[in-house]
């Protein structure tokens, strides 16, 4: 069954491998060969390390603020009235346009990149946490009230568990976003990282390095997604897997 599922992927790779290609499109085996060679050198690890040093703090900061403020806006009406319109109004705005401003405010180093990643990660988690709270079934809250639960208990034992699946879905989106924004910020302005590596490779026509960097970011994105899904299945074992 697994073979049947992957059949199209294998077919695509096979056609890609045997078809005549221009020099800037490498075949799958060539890419693997270059990637294996890069794995043996320190350069790739340094760039991956530099990229993760930006994307992970940004993701953690943005997601944490998003979850905290989203939960607060879902629970407290006055906070909702004050904050939510601003968040929903700016939601469809591409956050990356703030990068130049952040660079002027916070310097061209890592801080501006971490903050722009945090800004991008904030939105999906905020919105999901907010809707997660609002979708809590009133009957559960009423039952808890009836049984004499305090507001703090209701929040911890009823609201939080019922919002958790939505928050984790938001985390999945924001993790994917964190890699995109990290890569974009590094392509626009950086001295290290995978986005910088692909720019240098592009400018010096090192097609092998371009594909190495591309494969590295693809693996990172895929692994991060698996990690969130693993956390989802462990933390929310009572839920049907999506």
């Amino acid at each position: 069954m697994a073979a049947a599922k992957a059949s199209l992927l294998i077919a695509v790779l096979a056609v890609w491998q045997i078809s005549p290609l221009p020099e800037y499109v490498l075949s799958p085996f060539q890419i693997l060969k270059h990637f294996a060679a890069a794995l043996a050198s320190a350069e790739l690890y340094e760039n991956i390390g530099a990229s993760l040093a930006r994307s992970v703090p940004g993701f953690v900061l943005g997601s944490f603020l998003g979850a905290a403020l989203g939960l607060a806006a879902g629970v407290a009406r006055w906070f909702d009235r004050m904050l939510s319109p601003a968040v929903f109004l700016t939601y469809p705005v591409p956050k990356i346009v703030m990068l130049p401003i952040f660079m002027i405010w916070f310097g061209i180093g890592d801080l501006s990149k971490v903050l722009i990643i945090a800004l991008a990660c904030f939105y999906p988690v905020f919105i999901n946490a907010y809707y997660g709270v609002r979708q809590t079934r009133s009957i559960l809250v009423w039952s808890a009230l009836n049984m004499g639960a305090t507001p703090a208990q209701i929040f911890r034992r009823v609201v939080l568990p019922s919002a958790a699946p939505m928050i984790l879905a938001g985390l999945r989106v924001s993790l994917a976003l964190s890699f995109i924004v990290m890569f974009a910020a590094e392509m626009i302005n950086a001295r290290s990282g995978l986005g910088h590596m692909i720019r240098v490779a592009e400018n010096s026509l090192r097609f092998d390095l371009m594909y190495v960097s591309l494969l590295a970011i693809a693996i990172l994105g895929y692994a991060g997604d698996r990690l969130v899904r693993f956390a989802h299945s462990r933390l929310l074992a009572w839920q049907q897997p999506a």
Partner: protein
Amino acid sequence: MKVLEKMLPLVLVGTVLVIWEAAARSGLWSRLLFPSLVNIVQELGLFFTRSASLMEAWVSLQRALGGFALAAVVGILLGMLMGRSKLVAGLLDPLFSGTYAVPKLALFPIFIFVFGIGSLSKVALVFLECLYPIVIMTYAGARDVNRAFLWSAQNMGASRAAILRRVVIPATAPFIFAGFRVAVPVAMIVVVITEMVASADGLGYLVIYAMSSLRTDRVLALVVVIAALGYLLDRMVVLARDRLIYWEKLDTYYV
């Protein structure tokens, strides 16, 4: 009290603007860091009165909408096929879910070599990034059409084409629009990023150009323009959705 509640959202925005203007006028920071709101509004006025800058916005809009429209056509087609055919779903689903979390943006340098540095490479990347949410949402909708409706339609002697047109498509439409709403901001993001990375026209290029000339006020005016464009496109999707899917209200709180 009612009036006060209505004013609450404005309080936050107003406070931010007042703090901003105070910071700009305090002299603690350089004008390059915090330009006064007056300067930003002036730059906005300049943007809308110059045909050259409006042309740049038009270029960006064309790229975003072109890629999005292509992705909509291909994505709905693929999603419908996947939803209605186990075979197609079995073939394509691993491909889409396997590469879903991979940042497609990383392909841009390669796209530049394949499609050239002009609009085509940007439209191709917008297409690719928008394709995923549209396919995935359409697939989810077409797969879970209420069986009772399908059976009743069959029972009443509807042809396959009639079932598709009268049952499957209306049932999937809300999902398609949910996909559109994810895809439209993505299209704007990709256009702006690709123009910031490698371009000689479009709004993203204007941002980088203003930034390189340290015109913070102009950068901020452009941020406002791009934000307004992203917001307007989203409203247009919602408007189209409400007109086409009149039988089902969008059950979100604010938007």
